[in-house]
């Protein structure tokens, strides 16, 4: 019967919890708070065998409620969190970390910094080892805030009248640099996704002229297979190399990998432009592949720049009459779905109504890929000529002239 007793108590608390959850989902914070008052007595029962115990539930739910409740203040939140910190030693650092996040989200940077520093100095026997991950994160974020302070000091110096003669500010700046650099370096050694840390660390290194270290850090971040695949890593590396005037060859090799991971990335336009400028045949070929791949994605459908890149390249190829087979290769896998995706009659009307430059570029592409008799091209060339736009007349002539190219591509 004592087992039944337990289940009745548990059932009642479970029911209470589901009421809390319902209220939270419906943003009824007062109601959620009310039921939480009835739930908190579960702290007095032993739930040590459960996976998710009441103290964690109360911490998370209480935080949510205090975050959103209209009558709650930062002071209340802080006092609640301090209590939660004493509740479970096994979660101490996690609570500290999330507390710091909350303070940061509310613009209380100094308080967040104090919290993180305090947490950093926490020691509790073997728990310190068990919570090593959280400790590293705490140090990393503290380092990030040091970077912010460094940045502030730097700006003071840059904008002040005496320039770099302001010694105390300068010294402070350097000390923040040392603290920040140390922590940031630590965290990015561990495989993970650390975008903000990497960016800040590289910024520090560049300022102090340590370009080699910066390049090494970025290479590691992008190419070390132990790290999770992260397109941003490649973007950061590319931006760094570009800043330092690296060769087109290295820029292209970085962007090639980005194209492989994220064919729809916004840098694909730059990549295509770079490749088109290159004299190498394989780069020209790659440029075509890159721009076709980007336009496979819905997000690019109305991008004039992308269409103009494709149009330009197609025009070049058609005029030179070399490498029509390249277009054929790219078009073969797309010819049964691009017409409906990009060149429907509905889109023809809409593109003409909304964006004349877009429709011009697209019309050129459609005229070559689908021929002068396709509905998209016909509609737009008709509209364009009717509106007496010179470029459309030229376009019409061009497409008519190069109709044999279309026949070769589609055949």
């Amino acid at each position, binding site marked *: 019967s004592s087992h039944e007793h337990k289940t009745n108590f548990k059932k009642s608390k479970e029911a209470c919890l589901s*009421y809390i959850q319902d209220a939270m989902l419906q943003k009824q914070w007062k109601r959620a708070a*009310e039921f939480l008052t009835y739930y908190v007595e579960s*702290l*007095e029962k032993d739930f040590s065998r459960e996976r998710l115990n009441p103290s964690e539930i*109360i911490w998370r739910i209480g935080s949510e409620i205090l975050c959103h409740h209209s009558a709650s203040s930062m002071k209340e939140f802080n006092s609640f969190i301090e*209590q939660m910190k*004493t509740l479970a030693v096994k979660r101490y650092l996690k609570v500290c970390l999330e507390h710091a996040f909350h303070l940061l989200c509310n613009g209380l940077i100094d308080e967040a910094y104090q919290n993180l520093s305090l947490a950093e100095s926490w020691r509790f026997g073997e728990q310190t080892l068990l919570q090593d991950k959280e400790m590293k994160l705490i140090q990393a974020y503290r380092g990030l805030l040091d970077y912010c302070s460094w940045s502030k000091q730097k700006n003071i110096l840059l904008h002040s009248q005496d320039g770099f003669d302001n010694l105390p500010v300068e010294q402070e700046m350097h000390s923040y640099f040392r603290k920040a650099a140390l922590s940031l370096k630590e965290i990015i050694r561990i495989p993970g996704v650390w975008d903000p840390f990497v960016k800040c660390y590289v910024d520090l290194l560049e300022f102090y002229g340590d370009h080699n270290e910066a390049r090494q850090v970025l290479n590691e971040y992008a190419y070390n297979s132990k790290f999770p695949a992260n397109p941003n890593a490649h973007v950061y590396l590319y931006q760094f190399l570009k800043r330092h005037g690296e060769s087109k060859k290295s820029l292209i090799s970085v962007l090639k990998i980005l194209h492989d991971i994220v064919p729809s990335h916004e840098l694909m336009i730059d990549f295509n432009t770079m490749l088109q400028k290159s004299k190498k045949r394989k780069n020209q070929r790659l440029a075509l592949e890159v721009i076709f791949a980007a336009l496979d994605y819905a997000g690019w459908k109305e991008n004039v720049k992308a269409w103009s890149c494709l149009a330009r390249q197609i025009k070049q190829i058609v005029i030179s009459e070399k490498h029509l087979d390249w277009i054929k290769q790219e078009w073969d896998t797309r010819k049964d779905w691009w017409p409906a995706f990009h060149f429907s009659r509905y889109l023809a009307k809409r593109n003409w109504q909304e964006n004349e430059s877009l429709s011009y570029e697209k019309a050129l592409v459609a005229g070559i890929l689908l021929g002068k008799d396709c509905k998209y091209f016909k509609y737009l060339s008709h509209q364009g000529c009717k509106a007496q736009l010179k470029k459309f007349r030229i376009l019409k002539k061009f497409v008519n002239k190069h109709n044999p190219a279309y026949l070769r591509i589609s055949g």
Partner: protein
Amino acid sequence: QSWPVYEEVFNKMLELAAFLELPRFPDITDSCFLHPDMLCMKYLMEANLPDELHNWTCRVVKKIGIGEADFLTLMPGNKSTRKVKYDVLAAAVIVVVLKLLFLLDDRYEWFLSDFAEERNKNNKEGGPYFEFKKWYKVIKCSLDEKQKKLDEERAKYLWRCEKPLFYSAKKKSKVLKRRQMVVTLQNQFGKLSDSVRPAEKPNPSSFQLSWSEENTDGNCFHGHSLRGILQEKCGLLTPMNPDYWLCTVKLCTEKMCGHLAHYREVEFPESYHFVLRLFSFLLRIQPSYIHDEVCVIEHKLFNKKLCKKPKYNTVLRK
């Protein structure tokens, strides 16, 4: 820490009475509150059913002999007589009467209700005829509302005792700290709750649902007449419903599984479930207890027919 189970309390009560060697309790006669006729009246009122149904419950009570003092009166220590659960018995009688009059097979009661509705259109004199459909709607609404409130109350139930318990001096400080934290948290979130409800004075009446005829929204069915569903035969009013279905053909023995019937394992009509749910809510017990009692009453009522062992065992002709 649990809500006491009805059965357990009941059995403990019997054990205690036997242990104390209490003599036979005062006779329960039909003027006693615990007599089925009285309790049926109470529950009919609470369930918002027509007063006229009381005639029928009294008839059933008389027919199966459960109104006798010897049957009803508690004799502690006497193991041979089955102990009577007065309220459950009364509720079960009402359920049986409803089955007699309305069949409750998820079809007939609605048909009958439509029929009564038709007759009500021409009914100028006297009170309106009772329509099952209307009653169902009203009761379902109230029942759902009250059930929801009850569920919330149960979820809000506070289990802790005034003084925290601890088993060793080592644990004492931890337990006290926890208690302190719980109180602090309760205060903190209590302030953020909806405005505090004024302490509700406990209702002195034992009625959970009350229906008043003065209410103009027509939700009270006490005064409604059963004539809408009765017919005249040989000068007597009999139910139009000729059929009855038994909840179970055979009763289990209590020794085997502790129950006489098994509510959960068989599929019953929704209307039957609904009626059981209503009384289970009013009595605050599991519906299976009422179901057991209904089975027993049915077996007493149709005893003769059952002994003949009919071929098709679920529907009987009355």
